[in-house]
């Protein structure tokens, strides 16, 4: 009996360092960042004068800078395009590979290898591929290929293009929107930043192998009898996928949305190495703004406010996921 209490004590001692480290370096630090975001700390010397939500309000204003509003627009653009493309591509590849074809392992590894590479390497590679070229250099990268293939009309500025697609206030539809009281939607902050497409392409190249692996694991988990039964009932291959298989792998889609979604909210490395903030903040994202304003601009309180907002959105996505998956475990 004495041995059991001793073992209990040792077991606590084994996990205590980790629990204390996480308590301090995750929760304590988040607390400090939250505190700093409410202060006037805008230079290298800490200044803990309380300013309330001033730093947050500034982020949502258009003066002196509308940078954060651009960041939010870019994050939405990036997240939606990136999630759709990696899920569609990953699922498509998984369905093709699920047919027990020869050389499956080789194909699988080919689609997955970008996962092993750092975002910095990916960014450097894709910046070279998507460099649009100039009048001095002529077309480069993909633009050069388009030109050679006679598809010159596809050439464009990629990540250097500052175009934002949005509903203009003085367009017909914009006037209609303000007429019905939705004039706020006709704003350059509610739109699509075309330059983000380049970052989406690089990120999809890197991450779609991951969704493929998740879907493939799920497809392999579906008993063959179920497909056979559907086939016997006269269902076509397409119907089997639509009616039987896709509904069964829906939980994987949810996991993929959450995991990739939180990655895309935090995207930083790829933006740094590919584009930076871009023309008129066309490829700026909150994680980059935070780093820029905190560690280059020494505006610690402003950076802290961005970090807390970022954490808040990530937590909204992750906490329900964590709670449901740990609860599922307890019931099982």
């Amino acid at each position: 009996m004495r041995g059991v209490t001793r073992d209990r004590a040792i077991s606590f001692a084994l996990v205590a360092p980790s629990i204390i480290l996480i308590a301090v370096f995750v929760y304590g630090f988040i607390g400090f960042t939250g505190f700093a975001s409410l202060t006037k700390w805008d230079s290298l010397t800490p200044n803990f004068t309380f300013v309330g939500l001033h730093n947050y309000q500034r982020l949502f204003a258009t003066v002196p800078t509308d940078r954060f509003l651009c960041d939010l627009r870019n994050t939405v653009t990036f997240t939606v395009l990136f999630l759709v493309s990696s899920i569609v591509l990953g699922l498509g590849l998984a369905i093709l590979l699920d047919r027990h074809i020869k050389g499956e392992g080789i194909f699988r590894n080919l689609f997955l290898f970008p996962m092993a590479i750092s975002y910095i390497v990916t960014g450097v590679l894709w910046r070279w591929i998507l460099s649009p070229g100039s009048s001095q250099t002529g077309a480069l990268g993909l633009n050069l290929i388009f030109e050679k293939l006679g598809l010159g009309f596809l050439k464009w500025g990629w990540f250097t293009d500052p175009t934002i697609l949005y509903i203009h206030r003085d367009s017909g539809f914009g006037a209609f929107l303000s007429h019905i009281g939705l004039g706020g939607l006709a704003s350059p902050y509610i739109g699509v930043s075309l330059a983000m497409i380049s970052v989406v392409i690089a990120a999809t190249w890197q991450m779609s192998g991951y969704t493929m692996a998740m879907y493939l694991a799920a497809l392999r988990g579906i008993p063959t009898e179920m497909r056979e039964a559907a086939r016997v009932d006269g269902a076509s291959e397409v119907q089997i996928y639509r009616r039987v298989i896709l509904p069964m792998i829906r939980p994987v889609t949810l996991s993929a949305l959450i995991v990739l979604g939180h990655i895309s909210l935090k995207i930083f490395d790829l933006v740094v190495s590919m584009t930076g903030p871009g023309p008129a903040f066309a490829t700026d994202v909150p994680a980059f703004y935070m780093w820029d304003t905190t560690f280059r601009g020494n505006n610690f309180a402003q950076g802290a406010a961005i970090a807390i907002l970022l954490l808040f959105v990530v937590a909204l996505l992750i906490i329900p996921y964590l709670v449901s998956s740990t609860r599922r475990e307890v019931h099982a």
Partner: protein
Amino acid sequence: MTALASRRAIRPGTVIVYCILVIGSLLFLGPIYLQLVTGFKSFREVSLATMWRFPRTLSLASFAKAWLGSEAQGMNGLAANFMNSVYITVPATLLSAFLGSLNGYVLSKWRFRGANVVFPLLLFGMFIPYQSILIPLVQVLENIGLYGTRGGLIFVHVVYGIPITTLIFRNYYAVIPDELLEASKIDGAGILTIYANILFPLSIPGFVVVMIWQFTSIWNDFLFGLIVTSSPSLQPITVALNNLAGSYFVEWNVQMAGALIAALPTLLIYIFLSRYFMSGLLAGSVKG
């Protein structure tokens, strides 16, 4: 007969599947192809109009320049940074794997009251945007004298590696039957003896998965390397590569060679140990 007929009927479909997969593979390999042909071209041969073309002669000059740097251009080579990454990644990987193994052991086999609360709280640590801890992190590292050192980066990677390593080991140990432990408990073995004699010897595949995962993510880390180090000679390779690629005077073929040097260790691990790489990947998202 019908089986034969149906097999023959599937064939055109199979051909299409192969075509799509081959085209897809070529597209996925496109960036690597461009990286290799650019990196292996001699400086004389680099011309923007022929950037996609295969080099006429294979030259290692770009790799030499990316590795050693160029005094004339005032460009630092990546050699020192590559070694920094080795000195940071190897100890951090070993330490965090060991820590994760102990945590996983206790959380799966010696569950204490409140473990159900502690575990998700630990896990949340791997999802947070690190921006939310960077400001105090820099202050604390400065105060304890670890800022700007390799030791500081090792420490940071070990701390923020706790959630994922704990998760993988906990799921790994959860499938080891408790009866195995009960038997030695009856024989009077204590918690540490059981770990050393029973769990640890069974943990080798778990360690391989965790170490591959940690090695890859620490080697590929950019944010912590950027924030925690300031002197170029102590920066890890990802930060140095980004600086190299960001300077306008560095030729594209040197950038591509540098990118290959930076990617090589994790690519080699992936090529030789892809099976374990997959398990780590799926462990991060699908809870056991």
